[in-house]
């Protein structure tokens, strides 16, 4: 059993406590992530995914109630060494233009690496690696003004900025919403490479079930600030209660499998990705 990187139990949180605008965001959320896996966090809008992610890098704390343990540290404790935690946990936000704050792209990507106290050549190396990973040519982009980039380029630059810190745990808050299919599959490839080659653990908050089916190893379902289902991705998506109860649509692959089964064409196992469905169909066809 591999090491647990994140453990969240019974987490409660409310915004603007004590004012007329108080809203409860989390009502007992749970999350467990093992090292080296891509864990997905799904749920309808307003379910508390972003809030939960923000507890994982100590942007929000201390918790009203509940435990948050990240990379062995208690992320909800007031005595936490926040600096140390944030060197190991990276958070990519939904809107890239919210994240870029330096005037030039190169400086923005280098910001995190510089904060780590690395030497100038080390910083340059990290930036080069990070930008190459996201597909931005170092020399072409490093001196561009950040606000002159296109939306897709900004998104990549924001991701590069976080990658340059080489975090052990990478958190993505709906980072693919609004991406075109090409951009999305590139990002998926990148995430898989980061998991396999760099040993990064990834937590991906998403509304897109197909993406989760293709990419994730485990899934946690949030609704109304509470965890309603969690486990290996195949188990959750093929479970008897179904996701409809929670108000979420199934991944289209699962839908296809279900529809085929109804018509008497049963595929073996529990295929999730398109590749698996395809293979399943081949196998099930009469010889």
């Amino acid at each position, binding site marked *: 059993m591999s090491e647990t990187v994140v453990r969240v139990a019974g987490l409660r949180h409310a*915004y*603007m406590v004590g*004012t*007329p*605008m108080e809203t409860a965001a989390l009502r007992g959320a749970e999350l467990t992530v093992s090292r080296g896996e891509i864990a997905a966090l799904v749920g309808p809008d307003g379910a508390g995914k972003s809030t939960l992610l*923000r507890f994982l*890098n100590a*942007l929000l704390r201390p918790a009203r109630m509940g435990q948050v343990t990240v990379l062995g540290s208690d992320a909800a404790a007031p005595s936490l060494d*926040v*600096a140390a935690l*944030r*060197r190991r946990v*990276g*958070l990519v*936000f939904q*809107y890239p*233009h*919210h*994240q*870029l*704050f*330096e*005037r030039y792209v190169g400086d923005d990507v280098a*910001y*995190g690496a510089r*904060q780590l106290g690395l030497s100038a050549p080390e910083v340059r190396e990290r930036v080069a690696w990070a930008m190459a990973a996201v597909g931005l040519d170092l020399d072409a982009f490093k001196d561009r003004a950040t*606000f002159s980039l296109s939306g897709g380029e900004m998104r990549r630059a924001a991701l590069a*900025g*976080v990658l340059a*810190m080489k975090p052990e745990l990478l958190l993505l808050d709906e980072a693919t919403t609004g991406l075109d299919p090409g951009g999305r599959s590139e990002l998926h490839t990148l995430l898989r490479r980061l998991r396999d080659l760099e040993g990064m653990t990834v937590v991906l908050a998403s509304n897109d079930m197909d993406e989760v089916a293709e990419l994730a190893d485990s899934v946690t379902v949030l609704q109304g600030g509470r965890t309603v289902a969690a486990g290996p991705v195949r188990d959750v998506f093929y479970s008897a209660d179904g996701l409809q109860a929670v108000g979420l649509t199934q991944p289209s692959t699962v839908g296809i499998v279900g529809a085929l089964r109804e018509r008497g064409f049963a595929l073996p196992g529990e295929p999730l990705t398109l590749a698996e469905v395809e293979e399943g169909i081949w196998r099930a066809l009469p010889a």
Partner: protein
Amino acid sequence: MASIASLRHVSIGQYIAMGSVVHRLDPRGKLICFGLLIIATVAATTYTSNVLLLAAVLGLVLLARLPVGYLLSTVKPAVPVILILALMQLLFYGGSADAALLTLSWGPIHIVVGRDAVRMVVTSLLRFLDLLFLTSLLTNTTTHGELTRGLESVLSPLNALHLPGHELAMIGAIALRFVPILGEQMESILMARESRGVGTGGSSRWRVVRNAQQVAALIVPLFVDAYRRSEEMMLAMQARCYRGGRGRTHLLESAWRLSDALALGLTVLLVASVLALQHLPFH
């Protein structure tokens, strides 16, 4: 600094719905009365005039059914500062030298508290309360929409004088529109920066300079973002053939009623009395 999550709920004053007489007054009238009362407050320098004013204002606050305790609680964190400043005023205000009220001598230390100084401190505090309540009276009983419309209406005579009354109202409207957007933006920048840099943005050893560097580093991207949005807005306005304010009409109009005229009349009366009291022989 305000907590991160509350940045998007910035407003000059919370509208507290109480349904009182004051709430229902026409915003134009309220703005004019507000202006007049502010003038009165600023001009009042004697004990009696200030007491009258404060009594009147308190009466209005109660009439508007606003919770006095809540209004005062906003000042609570600043009370120590206020006291220190009052003390300094008391000790160091150089009024007329012959009106000493209290003299303390401790060897080389010689402190004179003048009659004028006392009057200054007391009237300052009274005036402070007046203004606190007055601003609450305006902002807590009038919605933002009413305020902007009222403001534009009150400024409209300026248009006749070829002064940019409408433009001013437009500027105010744009600003109010932008504030929550920019608030959200600032929140995001803060979170992104914190996530990547642990809240340290400066390189100096001195806390003051570091704070300054952090704030500066936050403001520049905010400006650039606001500028970009404003460019979009310019395009949008041009696309809709915006050509200035002449001849614009409004969807919602407010009506001037008897209660408004009454309020205005009473306010004028009050201001006149306050100013008259200033000139009485006793203070």
